[in-house]
């Protein structure tokens, strides 16, 4: 199966029109666009994405506009869109209402970072009913039995958090992550995508070589947006970064293929 690149940005950072331009640029080399819903209290995120949340909210981003963005994006792209959010905005809108509107807008999947599988009973059946793919996260300290449970709750892919910490760019990838990935590959039925801390071609290549079915990149893009704002420069740099990462994914998969 082809290895995937998932590219994350925050919806409305710094405004809706820019987000659409960024999505378009990223979709040239990405297999999936992950769109973050800005939240007032993003406790699982590091500084880079926290600031993006603040920029988006300051720019007047509303939850309903996330659906507008996806609807607009669908007019010219078939690249799947997965929405990443904290639970409160979903709960506040009503899970069913939220999932239905996401589907109607053309969204493909949903990640709720602070909704563990135990609390996700109704959520799962609603996502299933509306054919919205589910993604849950697992971490290096997730025990085997729990990993199976999480795997069963996923329908799109399993998001493997590569480290103990929040989102954000890191220098290197750890053995902890590689070992965890190998363990998860043995146990899980879903494709496994690795995220958190991935910002370079080299990182992407190594995770793919170690058996990942995909990688998720966020802060590396958001840093570009932070630096260059709503500009052509940002669009160009996002595309460059995305291309670099995709090359990493492709090189990695070539190497795995050759090794077999």
């Amino acid at each position, binding site marked *: 199966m082809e290895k995937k690149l998932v590219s994350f940005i925050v919806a409305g950072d710094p405004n809706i029109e820019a987000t659409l331009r960024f999505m378009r640029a990223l979709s040239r080399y990405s297999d999936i666009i992950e769109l973050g819903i800005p939240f*007032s209290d993003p406790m699982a995120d590091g500084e880079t994405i926290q600031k993006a949340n*603040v920029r988006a909210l300051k720019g007047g981003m509303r*939850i309903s506009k996330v659906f507008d963005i996806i609807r607009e994006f669908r007019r010219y792209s078939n690249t799947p869109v997965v929405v990443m959010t904290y639970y409160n905005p979903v709960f*506040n809108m009503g899970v069913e209402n939220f999932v239905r509107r996401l589907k109607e807008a053309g969204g493909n999947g949903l990640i709720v970072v602070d909704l563990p599988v135990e609390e996700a009973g109704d959520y799962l059946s609603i996502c299933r009913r509306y054919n919205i793919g589910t993604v849950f*996260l697992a971490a290096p*300290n997730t025990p085997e039995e729990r990993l199976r449970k999480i795997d069963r709750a996923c329908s799109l892919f399993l998001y493997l958090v590569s480290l103990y910490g929040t989102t954000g760019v890191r220098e290197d990838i750890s053995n902890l992550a590689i070992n965890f990935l190998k363990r998860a590959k043995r146990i899980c039925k879903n494709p496994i995508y690795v995220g958190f801390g991935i910002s370079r071609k080299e990182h992407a290549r190594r995770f793919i070589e170690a058996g990942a079915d995909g990688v998720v990149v966020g802060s590396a893009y958001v840093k570009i947006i932070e630096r260059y704002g709503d500009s052509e420069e940002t669009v160009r740099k996002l595309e460059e970064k995305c291309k670099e990462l995709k090359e990493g994914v492709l090189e990695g998969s070539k190497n795995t293929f050759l090794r077999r």
Partner: protein
Amino acid sequence: MRFGEYGGQYVPEVLKPPLKELEKAYKEYRDDPEFREELDYYLKNYAGRETPLYFAKNLTEKIGGAKIYLKREDLLLGGAHKINNSIGQALLAKKMGKTRLIAETGAGEHGLSTAMAGALFKMKTRIYMGTVDMERQKLNVYKMKLHGAEVYPVDSGSKTLKDAINEALRDWVETFEYTHYLIGSVVGPHPYPTMVRDFQSVIGREAKRQILEIEGRLPDCIVACVGGGSNAIGIFHEFIDYREVRLIGVEAAGEGLDTDRHAATLLRGRKGILHGMYSYFLQDEDGQIKTTHSISAGLDYPGVGPEHAYLKDIGRVEYVGVTDKEALNAFLELSRVEGIIPALESSHALAYAMKIAKEMDREEIIIVNLSGRGDKDLHTVMKYVEF
């Protein structure tokens, strides 16, 4: 693990195993006679328990209604009830083999009590505190540093308690292997709301025994302020089953409940999820958490403990609001007539008690949980009152 529908464990996946570890350790030690004995030893000899139940004669006479008793948690080491919980959790963390403590703080009282516990049990301690709160609680910042704790300024969001919690959670996600997150109120994911309540319920147990000794009967009414809600649950818990005892939780109405500047979560909030729990929150129509306001940093929080949400729903506890101004008046009144400077947080409870005492009979009894002393608030009060 739930109070009615409230509570739960809404956390990123990384935190599930450490929460399980904590739950297991807490279950193991909570009824362990040796642990209890050790905890009691420190509560008595270090923190200064038990605290008196003081009949505020002058205040009672001045108001001319029900008898007002004050549960003197303000006399504890550090000047607030927070130490009951900090010593309990630090001791537990020690048993679990953790070497580092982190905590969030609003008014600085919980940060201070955690800094003291860190010094006492020789644990590395870092306190997360919003920069707005650091400014209005300078003295406590200094005290924490005296005890060897690092005070980490939080400059995100509203720069107050809720943001300090976010930042502490981010730390814990990275460091849980050797760090215990010592949450200071009955908030957060399970098992914190239960555990913190248990450590704080010593307040109510003592108060009940004391009032029976002094008056030979239970009080008619107990009043406590509610931010996250730990001192309130601490004094209420022992009395929940005595339906004849009226329990009143006082929220911060700030500049008024009909303005945007208050922190009255149960009175004006809606159900939601934040900081690992399902409870009430002050939020906008999109589910974004609102910025709150209260004259007292300790009540300046847009959420509330899940057990309070439950107690509100079943009608066992009445929740009311007291404004900045009313709290400030109560602060001045107690200082003048009894020679006791109450914390601005506790002044909210006091203000409401003074209001209802007037309409009650002279034989009736009110207990106010005087959860902390006001030394830390002088900086704030001086802005309003000059001599």
